[in-house]
């Protein structure tokens, strides 16, 4: 087998040295009746496996075959070519967690830079090295708050991505924590509601799951009055122009990192970012890199604050996370380095512009109406007289991915609402063109005719 480098001579010499006369003898510690042969396909050549994957791939319909207006947590943005080229360098790919700092300054500096960019973007003071994805970042944010406040309830805005709400439930249930919804009107979290004294954290998403820009400042005030922390789940691209969680006074900022230089990939190339204020640093989950000195006064970088982690604290750790999403965080670091503050502002501005133009175009169509009348960032929900499922299917036939069906998506979440049954969540980004918008408009006109 090509990945095992031993020649017959090697194998013989090694068996001899190990004091056995056959490979089978190496497995002597295992009861022999447990041995088995797998009923799997036989091995094939690289060329055959490449063909096999291409064949499977050909059974998908790729985004590039469509004009597309689909977001709902995963977004298509321009990925500077430096991102995959540099983050994909095999030294980065084939290293592991930098346990031996001196040999891994490259990875460690990159993580330190990642932490700095995430702190800068979210307006927070510290960041960890990533968690699995946006949903588990929300979860980890809530656990942090629960630990910090020693309270037992979480108040969640129905504007939080409905899937994230469900994941939060799956994680909080086993330990018996309570989740309750915040008041929500016209597509926005009510800024003036009273937060209960047992609430560890208020979780609010911005822009929210309906694309609407939330007023963070108000809810932060109310939460803090009640002694609760605020976990703000944010779209990182929006932070080019929208107030950062830090500016709004939030304590913990989390979010899905995929928009920062990663492709949609069926949602399979995600990472969760997680930042917080200084007082919470020692309760953050996951890897954290810090600056350190060697005995000659040279500055280096190293994994730090490990007393939080599972390999030291075991069942008392701040999280069970071990392997994280380092490589994708690295993609984001390259992305943010390419974009800089100016690029982030511009890409956010382009998203805002395209979404406004899309909204104007669709609202010209008789029967199309806005679901909530509030400023949006790069997603916007509309309603037609026809069931959303049918509208989307008809658009699909015309080569348009029209958006997310809100009725289905919000099922089993606090976001569920009668109002949403005919609603479609559309999305435009800097990659949306005039032709795309016009094509959507005329296709929808035909569909609704």
């Amino acid at each position, binding site marked *: *087998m090509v990945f095992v480098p031993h020649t017959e001579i090697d194998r013989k010499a090694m068996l001899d040295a*190990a004091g056995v006369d056959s*490979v089978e003898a*190496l*497995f002597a*510690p*295992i009861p022999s009746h*447990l041995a088995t*042969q*797998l009923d*799997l396909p036989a*091995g*094939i050549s690289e060329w055959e496996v*490449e063909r096999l*994957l291409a*064949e499977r*791939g050909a059974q*998908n*319909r790729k*985004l590039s075959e469509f004009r597309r207006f689909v977001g*709902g947590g995963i977004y298509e943005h321009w990925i*500077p070519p*430096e991102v995959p080229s540099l983050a994909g*360098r095999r*030294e*980065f790919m084939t290293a592991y*967690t930098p346990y*031996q700092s001196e040999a891994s*300054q*490259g990875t460690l500096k990159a993580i*330190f*830079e990642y932490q700095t960019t995430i702190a800068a973007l979210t307006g927070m003071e510290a960041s960890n090295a990533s968690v*699995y*994805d946006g949903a588990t970042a929300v979860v980890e944010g809530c656990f942090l708050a629960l630990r910090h406040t020693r309270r037992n309830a979480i108040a969640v805005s129905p504007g939080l991505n409905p*899937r994230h709400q469900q994941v939060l439930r799956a994680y909080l249930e*086993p330990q018996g924590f309570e989740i309750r919804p915040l008041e929500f009107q016209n597509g926005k979290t009510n800024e003036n509601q009273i937060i209960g004294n047992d609430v560890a954290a208020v979780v609010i998403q911005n822009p929210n799951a309906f694309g609407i820009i939330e007023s963070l400042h108000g809810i932060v005030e109310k939460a803090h009055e009640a002694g609760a922390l605020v976990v703000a789940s944010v779209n990182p691209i929006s*932070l080019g122009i929208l107030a950062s969680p830090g500016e709004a006074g939030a304590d913990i900022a989390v979010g*899905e990192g995929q928009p920062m230089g990663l492709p*949609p*990939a*069926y949602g*399979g190339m*995600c990472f969760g970012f997680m930042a917080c204020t200084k007082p919470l640093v020692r309760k953050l989950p996951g890897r954290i890199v810090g600056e350190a*000195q060697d005995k000659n006064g*040279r500055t280096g970088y190293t994994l*730090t604050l490990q007393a939080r982690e*599972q390999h030291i604290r075991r069942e008392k*750790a701040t999280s069970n996370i071990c*392997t*994280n*999403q380092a*490589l994708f965080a690295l993609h984001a670091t390259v992305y943010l380095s390419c*974009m*800089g*503050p100016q*690029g982030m502002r*511009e890409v956010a*501005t382009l998203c805002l*512009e395209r979404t406004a133009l899309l909204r104007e175009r669709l609202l010209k169509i008789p029967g199309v109406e806005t679901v909530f009348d509030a*400023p949006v960032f790069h997603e916007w929900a509309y309603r037609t007289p026809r069931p959303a499922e049918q509208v989307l299917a008809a658009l699909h036939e015309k080569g348009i991915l029209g958006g997310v069906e809100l009725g289905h998506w919000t099922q089993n979440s606090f976001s569920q609402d009668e109002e949403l049954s005919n609603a479609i969540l559309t999305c435009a980004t800097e990659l949306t063109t005039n032709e795309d918008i016009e094509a959507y408009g005329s296709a929808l006109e035909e569909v609704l005719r």
Partner: protein
Amino acid sequence: MSEALIYQRSRPGRYAYTLPPRLDRERDFTAALPKDFIRKNPPALPEVSKVDVVRHMTRLSQETISIDSHFYPLGSCTMKHNPMIADRALAGFGLDGLHPHQPDGDVQGLLKVFTEMEAYLAEVTGLDAVSLIPSAGAQGEFVGLAVIRKAIQARGENRHVVLVPDTAHGTNPASAALAGLKVVVIPSTIEGLVDVDALDSYLNDDVAALMLTNPNTLGLFEKDIETIAQKVHKAGALLYYDGANLNALVGRYRPGDMGFDVCHLNLHKTFATPHGGGGPGSGPVAVRAELEPFLPVPRIRTVNGEYRLDFNRPDSIGPIHGNWGNVAVVVRAYTYLRLLGHDGLADVSASAVLNANYLRAQLAKIFPNTTPGLCMHEFTVSLTCLSKSPANESASKSHKQSGNGNGNGNGAPHVRAMDVAKRLLDLGIHPPTVYFPTFISEGMLIEPTETETKETLDNFVAAMQQIKREAAEQPELVIGAPHTTQVGRLDDVGAARNPVLTFCCTFQ
């Protein structure tokens, strides 16, 4: 020359992006937003040119030791070669261009890969149903334990204890806690195996599960696994398999056949996907048929010959990820599995165990406290023998001795496992895992993997021999190592006391 942080290249006004043009140059859409929605200070991101980004990241990559550049026998991590064909096949598959909100009809090829992969992993583990969603081993553990918890609740029972050996990986107890279960540590025999007799006293009506890694974290196979399974089952509990070490057995032995009920795999270990400097991984969970209803949503169902995502599973523990976990890792692992096939997989474990035993036998000639008998895919060496004082000589026989300083009180410096690790860096080798499992004092856990040549192993033995000699003759050389890296040993204590976690100067 060591590369500075990218922030140190930053100059106001520099940039490295291009973006599509505005469509409407007349209107200012930002101005239309309420003022308190708007960011006040631009984020302090690096302001650099394209050349800056490229040169910086290229250099950082060169400052990173990796499998592609070095031997990396990090125990418990299975740092085997990551085939490049998996990168190419993934690109050819076209995963990048799929969106999770596309209708199921658009992603039949992907759902077919998922379906096949679930079946393959069921076969590999000897269990019945698989969820590919967990993002890493630890999330797999949480899912597995949450499934067990729900299944036990469904039985109407109230078991809330998870038994974990003292040699277990840290994620095991941490995941149990996360799943709302109480951790009870069970002791090991002197060799490091589960103390089967002692086990009985821990098995009671509170016990939901026993979690084992097999081979365990010392690289030893739990030879009484069938007895253990019987006892656990008899006590009404379930047996959990932490698959981190499956590379020792893959293609030859199966957790299901040993009596395990639930198991997670680490695709980033056994199935050769890149570790990415810390992740992503993938930690699929396999269970017996009766536990299938509790697996996370979505599941895949076939309706009229089409694959469909099924969220409507009332007994499920719920979704545990915003989407479908680390899909790119799953597709790579699928590629690897198909490439190797049943024959190749059996060769993997054979050669992984052969390499470990060859290396073990060679090192045993140098270090007396090396795993004595046959090991599986990895083994331990205790380096207490490198401390000079007679006091220490005797301590080297006892387990769990620890201590943070070098020096034995009477002048002769002690060379510790960490020193040896650092010295290996000077010799161009990534050190094995040190101080895990804590069961071994001054321990190294060495996992060569099957993809390394005999010459590479011999070179490692020579390096260890050299270091042993140095430890006797010029211990400062070892204690002061590494000498050839861009920084020397870093002051971890100082770093944790006053944490500097971001490049602060950038914050105005």
